[in-house]
C-alpha cells in the first residue's frame, strides 16, 4: 500500500518498543491497584483531603487562567507578526521550564525576602501559593490553544459585526469567543489537567502541608517517602490522575477532531 510510504519495514521494531515504553509503566500502575480496597483508599481522610484540595485549587487556578489568559491570547492573536512571536515565546517559557525553577522564581518574587516581600503578603506555603503555582504552569496551555483558534478565525467576522453596528463587548461575547469556542474549550481542559497534575512548582513555593498545600501529586510523592497517606491510597490517587488524564484526552479530541476541516466553517 502506497499509504505506508517507503520507510524500511524494520523501523516498526523500535516504534513498538517506544509504544511499549509508554504503555507498560501505566499498565504496571493499574496492576498494582488493590481493587478490593480501592474505595476505602480513595476515601481515607488524608486521600480525601488531597483530592478535594486538588479539585478546588485546580478549578480556581483554571478560572484564574481564563480571566487573564483569554485577554492575553487575544493580545497575541491580534499582534503583528514580530510582536506576536516575542509574546508567544514568553508565554511558552513556563511550558518548557522545569516546574521546580518556576516554583523557585515565584518564591523569589513573593517570598519574605523576595521582590514583593516588603508588602507583607504571606503567600508562600499557603493554599493561595498552590493556586499561583498551578496558574504559572497551566496558563501557557490555555493561552496557546486559544491563541491559535483566535488567529485562525481572524478579524473578518469582527469587521462584519462592527459594520452591522455591534460594539466591542458585543463582538467579543457574540462573535470572537464563540468562533474560538473549540480552542477555548480544549485550552481550558488542558489547563485544568496541567493544574491538578502540578508538582514541582507547588512543592517549592507552597510546600507539603496536609490539608493546606498537599495536593494529590504531593500526597503520592509523600506516601512513597513513608509519610502521609498509605501507599495503597497513593496508588489509588495515581489511578485517579491517570483516569483523569485519559478523560481529558478524549474530551479534547471529541471537541477538536484531528482533521483540520473542523475549522472550515470558521476560516
Amino acid at each position, binding site marked *: 500500500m502506497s499509504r505506508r510510504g517507503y520507510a524500511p519495514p524494520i523501523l516498526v521494531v523500535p516504534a513498538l518498543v517506544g509504544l511499549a515504553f509508554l504503555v507498560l509503566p501505566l499498565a504496571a500502575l493499574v496492576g498494582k491497584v488493590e481493587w478490593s480496597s480501592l474505595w476505602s483508599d480513595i476515601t481515607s481522610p488524608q486521600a480525601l483531603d488531597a483530592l478535594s484540595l486538588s479539585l478546588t485549587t485546580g478549578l480556581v487556578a483554571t478560572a484564574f487562567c481564563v480571566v487573564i489568559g483569554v485577554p492575553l491570547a487575544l493580545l497575541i492573536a491580534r499582534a503583528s507578526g514580530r510582536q506576536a512571536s516575542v509574546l508567544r515565546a514568553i508565554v511558552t517559557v513556563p511550558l518548557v521550564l522545569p516546574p521546580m525553577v518556576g516554583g523557585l522564581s515565584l518564591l523569589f518574587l513573593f517570598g519574605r525576602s523576595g521582590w514583593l516581600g516588603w508588602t507583607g503578603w504571606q503567600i508562600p506555603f499557603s493554599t493561595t501559593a498552590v493556586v499561583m503555582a498551578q496558574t504559572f504552569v497551566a496558563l501557557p496551555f490555555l493561552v496557546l490553544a486559544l491563541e491559535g483558534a483566535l488567529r485562525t478565525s481572524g478579524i473578518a467576522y469582527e469587521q462584519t*459585526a462592527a*459594520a*452591522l*453596528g455591534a*460594539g466591542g463587548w458585543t463582538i467579543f461575547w*457574540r462573535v470572537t469567543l464563540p468562533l474560538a469556542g473549540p480552542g477555548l474549550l480544549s485550552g481550558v481542559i488542558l489547563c485544568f489537567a496541567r493544574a491538578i497534575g502540578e508538582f514541582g512548582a507547588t512543592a517549592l513555593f507552597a510546600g507539603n502541608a496536609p490539608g493546606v498545600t498537599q495536593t494529590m501529586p504531593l500526597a503520592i510523592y509523600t506516601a512513597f517517602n513513608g509519610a502521609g497517606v498509605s501507599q495503597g491510597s497513593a496508588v489509588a490517587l495515581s489511578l485517579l490522575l491517570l483516569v483523569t488524564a485519559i478523560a481529558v484526552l478524549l474530551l479534547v479530541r471529541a471537541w477538536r477532531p484531528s482533521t483540520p476541516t473542523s475549522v472550515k466553517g470558521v476560516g
Partner: protein
Amino acid sequence: MSGATLEARVTVDRGRYTLQAEVHADAGEVVAVMGPSGAGKSTLFGALAGFVDLDEGFVHLDGRTVDAASGPHVTPRDRGIVLLGQEPRLFPHLTARENIAFGPRARGTVRATARADADVWLERVGLAGMGGRRPAELSGGQQQRVALARALATSPRLLLLDEPLTSLDPETAGGIRELLSAQLRETGTTALVATHDAADAASLASRLVILEDGRVTQTGAVQAVMDAPATPFVTIIAGTRPHRGPAGLQARIVQVDEDEDGLAARARTADGAEVVLRLPIGTAIAPGATITVG
C-alpha cells in the same frame, strides 16, 4: 436611516499603488464600480466602510463628514455603511434568523422584535421557513440571500456590494441579481456595486464608475459609458454586455402606480424582462402603451 447621499474623495497610499478616486451617489441611487482586478475597488470600499485609513480626502454621508484624513473618523460601527463581499461571511455559529437579527439586536432592538423582523426578511429574500438553519446547512446562493437580508435589516445608509455574485454559479447569480435589484429599489438603499460583469452593472445600476489603476477613468450613465468607451478596458466590457439592437428595446407598459415620489411604470419587453420607470407626476402614460428604451 436609509439611503444617504454619498460624496467621497479618497486617497489611500499603498506603496505599490495609490488609490485616488472620487465617487458620488444620490440618495437611493445604485452606482456600479467596474475595473480590472487590482484596480482598487476593494480598497475603495474598505476606505468608505472605515476599515482602511485615508491618507487624504473625505467621506461625506448626507453632507456630514464620517471620515477625513485630517478630521473625524466615525467608527465602522456608527457609520451605517454595510459591506457585503464575495463571501457572505455569515456568522457560522448563528442560525440564519440570528444572523439577520444580529445588526438590529446590536443596535438595541429587543430580541423578540428583531427575530420577528428577521423572519419577514427571510420571506422577502425567498427563504421563508429556513430561519433555524445554520450557514453550513445552506447553499452558497442561500447564504448570499441571508447576507443580503442581514445587511438590509440594519437599514444601511450606504450598502457596499463587492462582487456579490462572483462566487455563485450563473443560474444562482441570476436569481440573486433579480433579488438585489428588487430589494435595493424597494428599500431605497444607496448602494455601490463593484462588479466585473457588464450585465450586473446594466441591470442593477443607473450610473457607472470605471476605476483603473487606482484612478477613475470614466463615469456617467451606464449606457452612456458603454456607448462611448474612453479606455480599452471599457471597450472590452462594453463588448460583453447583453446585446441590444440599434433601435433600442421595445417594451410595453403593463402597470402604472402613483405614489408621493411620482409614477412607477412597469414595462415588459418581448422576451419577458421587466423594467420600472420612475416618471414625474402628470406624465401621460397608461398600460398598453409601447415605449422604446434607448
